[in-house]
């Protein structure tokens, strides 16, 4: 089902290596890519994170852990962590819950399943584009769709209110955009639901279990590995969000840093302001640490709620 599942199942042990030469040819592009595009840059960015490297300056000094120390005193960095964590921890569960709910509803032999599936899936293909981010600024901006409608209904006073210009609600508008793209996890859940043998449900209803009990006792346990892996991948993905926050805030992370995503701050530090690439690398590595901690914690917690029947 997922790359993570696969990773868990890899077994060690000896095997014959009869195809070494052929394999080298088949794998040549991938190996070159792994080294040149992934591994060497990975090590290089770790090294850079201990320096004050700038693309434009000739002198590069080794700083030790100074970049990392500076990070802990950097208020904007903590603000960006706060924004990103809020975004990840609030919108991901909402998105997955909606995806699961709709998938379960659609799976009950609904007529018109292909139609609903398409309508719910389409937004997730467009959600990361600039066009949708621009559209969002017109939905939640001053005199935008939402304010105009709410003002007409008399719920808010003036259509000039901007949900994006208000530090309290700016982040929420981007979260709504994320929840709007629930279609792709929904498709994965639908595929998972199809694998649950219908005799489980038949047996349960013979025993007098209602739909609600069936959901919690059959659907949830059997679907839990898929929910778990979706959770991990969506969290990793959400940590890396960039485009929506960039467009919605006009590249600034505003108003008053209320949408300063971590990716946005790294970009600003390394590529816009003073081109402080050493410091940006340190921030990137700190993100890896955070993501790793989250993933590890998820794996640890999974033994309390994820059910494997093998």
């Amino acid at each position: 089902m997922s790359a993570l599942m696969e990773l868990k199942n890899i077994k060690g042990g000896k095997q014959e290596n009869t195809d070494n030469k052929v394999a080298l040819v088949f794998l040549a592009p991938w190996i070159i890519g792994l080294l040149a595009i992934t591994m060497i840059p990975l090590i290089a960015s770790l090294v850079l994170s201990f320096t004050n490297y700038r693309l434009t300056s000739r002198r590069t000094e080794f700083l030790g852990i100074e970049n990392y120390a500076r990070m802990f005193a950097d208020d904007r960095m903590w603000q960006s962590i706060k924004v990103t964590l809020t975004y990840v921890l609030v919108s991901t569960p909402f998105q997955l819950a909606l995806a699961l709910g709709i998938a379960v509803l659609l799976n009950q032999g609904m007529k018109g399943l292909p139609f609903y599936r398409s309508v719910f899936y389409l937004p997730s293909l467009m959600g990361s584009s600039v066009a949708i981010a621009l559209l969002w600024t017109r939905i939640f901006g001053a005199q935008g769709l939402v304010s105009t409608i709410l003002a007409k209904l008399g719920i808010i006073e003036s259509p000039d209110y901007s949900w994006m210009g208000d530090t309290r609600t700016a982040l929420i508008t981007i979260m709504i955009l994320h929840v709007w793209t629930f279609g792709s996890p929904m498709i994965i859940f639908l595929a998972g639901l199809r694998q649950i043998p219908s005799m489980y449900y038949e047996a349960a209803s013979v025993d007098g279990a209602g739909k609600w009990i069936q959901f919690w006792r059959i659907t949830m346990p059997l679907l839990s590995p898929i929910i778990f892996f979706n959770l991990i991948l969506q969290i990793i993905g959400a940590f890396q969000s960039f485009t929506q926050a960039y467009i919605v805030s006009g590249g600034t992370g505003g108003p008053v840093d209320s949408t300063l995503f971590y990716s946005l701050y790294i970009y600003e530090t390394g590529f816009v302001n003073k081109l402080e690439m050493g410091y940006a690398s340190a921030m990137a590595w700190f993100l890896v640490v955070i993501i790793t901690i989250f993933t590890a914690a998820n794996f640890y917690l999974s033994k309390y709620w994820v059910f494997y029947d093998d």
Partner: protein
Amino acid sequence: MTDLATTTAPTSPRELSAEDRRHAKRPVPTGQRVKSVIKHILLVAAACVMIYPLIWMLVSSLRPGDLIFRTPGLVFDNFTTENYEYGWDALGRPFGTYMINSVIVSAGSILGNVVTCSLAAYAFARLRFTAKNILFAIMLLTIMLPFHVLIVPQYIVFSKLGMLGTFWPLILPKLLATDAFFVFLLVQFIRGLPRELDEAALIDGCGHFRIFFNIIMPLLVPAIATTAIFTFIWTWNDFFGSLLYLSGREELYTVQLGLRAFQDSSGLTNWGAIFAMSVLSLIPIFLAFLFGQRFLIRGIATTGIK
């Protein structure tokens, strides 16, 4: 549950329709019918909310700019194409330039991903070689690596190679199978193909290259289609890469960067034109969805990503 990890076979259509028929024969109690109606109402309402923004953008792009926000409904009054005419030439270059640039980057990326990822996938799925498990694990881990830790050194290297302001930084990684997600997708698919086919060919004296090109490739077409369509959508939507590597070279702007330039230059005034160009930028995605939905759905259902 582990078999979920590898099952690729979708339920056959015949099986489904047989089940539908059984459902149809059963007499439906009134209570259940009411429930079913409620469910449909819920779903229709949800579908409307989901799709409303897109329809609104489309309808608005065909109305005079000053009317868009005064009456935010879906009415087709004062139909006009002026937003498209104005928007097409509003920036320094016709919007078509950006569309063509995006097509070039997408085509290069698709070609790269399809060829190099399926080569690597064949090796992982069928060949025996040293350190295969370790390399496979590394490949899977690169899927989950956040791109932030790579961009700074990559940017430095591309700048030293004189490739800033060219399409190379966007296409070159795809020619080197760095989209490991697709390697994984294709590995899964090849594993599902019967081994007897290539074993028979091997006994007949076929080398691995002939097996790959003559036997595996033709059977791999659905998975290659999935790879191509996903690559297209992700490349077409990619904003960060273009922003990083193409900034300042307006003649090379991709659609996403063009739209961003629009946001800057028109100073948030001409929303009709911005909507019009946004709609144009989404049409290729919509077409990919329309014609490739089958492959997309199978792709994410079998690999569980995105």
